[in-house]
């Protein structure tokens, strides 16, 4: 069987890639997708722990994470639509109204 450490390392790598995507991409929607990627990485870690301990608690938590991600995606994309309509651009760097 696969050592838990491997799953955790994979989770860490995916998380790091998600961060890279989050920092470097300019499209709002792509950034949102990077967040989803990070959440997935965390889910992987939870399931790995759940399997290693033999208990199901981690998987229950994963279910909750998925639910929350869904709710967040719904509301977040709604906001993105409104913002994009307002600023007429999907480039996150164009939304700089807070600039001093």
């Amino acid at each position, binding site marked *: 069987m696969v050592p838990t450490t491997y799953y955790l390392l994979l989770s860490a790598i*995916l998380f790091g890639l998600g961060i890279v*995507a989050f920092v470097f*991409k*300019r499209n709002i929607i792509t950034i949102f*997708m990077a967040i*989803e990627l990070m959440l997935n990485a965390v*889910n992987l870690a939870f399931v790995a722990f759940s399997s290693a301990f033999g208990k199901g608690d981690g998987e229950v938590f994963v279910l909750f994470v998925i639910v929350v991600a869904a709710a967040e995606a719904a509301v977040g*994309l709604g906001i993105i639509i409104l913002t994009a309509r307002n600023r007429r651009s999907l480039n996150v760097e164009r939304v700089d109204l807070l600039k001093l």
Partner: protein
Amino acid sequence: MTASLFIFFVLAALAVLGAVSLILQRHPIHSALSLIVVMVALAGLYLLMGAEFVAAVQIIVYGGAIMVLFVFVIMLLNAGEEERTNFSKLATYAGIPLAVATAGLIAAAIVRSSSGTLSTAGASGALTSTRTLSMLLFKDFVYPFELTSFLILVAILGAIVLAQREN
């Protein structure tokens, strides 16, 4: 190299490739499709670990609902290729080092603590029955469950309010 290990490496490579593709693609739709690849790979990994219910939920909800939502929004907003603006010097120069630092920190912590009982146990392929899951969900974790249903209600309301036309 056992079979499970081999499958693991395949699926892991797939996931990583998908994530890298997400970063490198210029059009958001391609990034969305890459993300779907990642999610399917992860679902495979869940199956490998015996979490069948979670794998199913992953595909149905994440892949079938959330990513579809993303694709719809991309279509709705007529998103094109990314603009190549670069206003933030900080993000450009500090981005990769910091990401590497984060991942490295977590990885180092994982490796360091791999002398405990946890790693020797290993992720078995033992099946977690749906029955076990539902017992946990509706008995031990019933309060968070109710709260998440509440959360969904709020999200629905939020989405409706946001989508309203200006009167």
